[in-house]
């Protein structure tokens, strides 16, 4: 038999996580630009930097930054 209480708890868990990950509009874009600006000071970036912000079950924010670089500027200077 399906456990309705468990289903409700799972639904609630998803809702609470969704509420917590509802960052202000444009927040992720601001972080993305900052990350791109910082990384481009050290590396020759290839393409766009992507930032993914999520919340795990314990309420911690998980931030994933994805970027590709063709070279490291600091090494070139050396």
């Amino acid at each position, binding site marked *: 038999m399906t456990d309705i*209480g468990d289903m409700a708890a799972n639904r*609630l868990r998803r*809702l609470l996580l969704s509420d917590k990950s509802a960052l202000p509009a444009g927040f992720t874009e601001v972080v993305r630009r900052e990350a791109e600006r910082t990384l481009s000071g050290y590396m020759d970036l290839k393409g766009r930097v992507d930032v993914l912000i999520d919340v795990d079950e314990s309420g911690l924010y998980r931030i994933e930054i994805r970027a590709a670089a063709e070279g490291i500027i600091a090494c070139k200077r050396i």
Partner: protein
Amino acid sequence: MSNTVVVTSGKGGVGKTTVTASMGFALAARGVNTLLIDGDVGLNNLDVALGMENRAAYDMADVMTGKCRVAQAILQVPGYPLYIMPSAHAVYSEQIKAGDFRALIARLGGSFDYILIDCPAGIEGGFHRAVSASEYAIVVTTPHVSAVRDADKVITLLSGYELRGISLIVNRVRGDLLARGETLEPKEISRLLRYPLLGVIPEDDEITVCSQLGRIGMAESSSRAAFEMAVGNMLTGEGRIYDPTAKYRGIIGALRSHFRRRA
């Protein structure tokens, strides 16, 4: 110095006023000198729940504007060390400033062991006024997804205040549904909201009836035992939580659950 506790929820209709009044009675029954303050300015109901609505000559606003002395706006519930200060019913909520409210609570602090503030529903100015005057918060929810979600939002806001403690009361829990695994478990709610349970209160028709008659402290049913346990936890940290499933266990319990479902 008294302990000032705001009873709040987020979602309306979860039984905040009933919980405030019942906790007050349970505290007073243990001899704890308790004052209940209706923080729901303009939409006051605490006096009605206690059957004191016709006894109030003055209210909170009268004290603040100097129309009466503090003692004149405080009513005693007959037979108990339980007192109530009715809310201002003839003014708009915005007219009662948070600073003035805090000053009033500070003045009253020396005269009572516990002050329970019945917070207005929602997260507007009235919420800030009540919470900013408090040291502890009790968040009331029911085991419904929407109520718990709103409780979570309120808890997020509460974390911005310098409170000494936040705990949860899960109200109106149906033991038959809980025994069959058909409703959210209070312990799971506590785990998801990440705050401790102060109490679990069963759904209780007698509370509804007593509330309508203005005799909320007179209920002699299972909810009374549940409130007594919650108050024990508040005073001594006993950690006893009422089990609403108890009467739905065993053969008799299964029959009771079956007939309740059919009803």
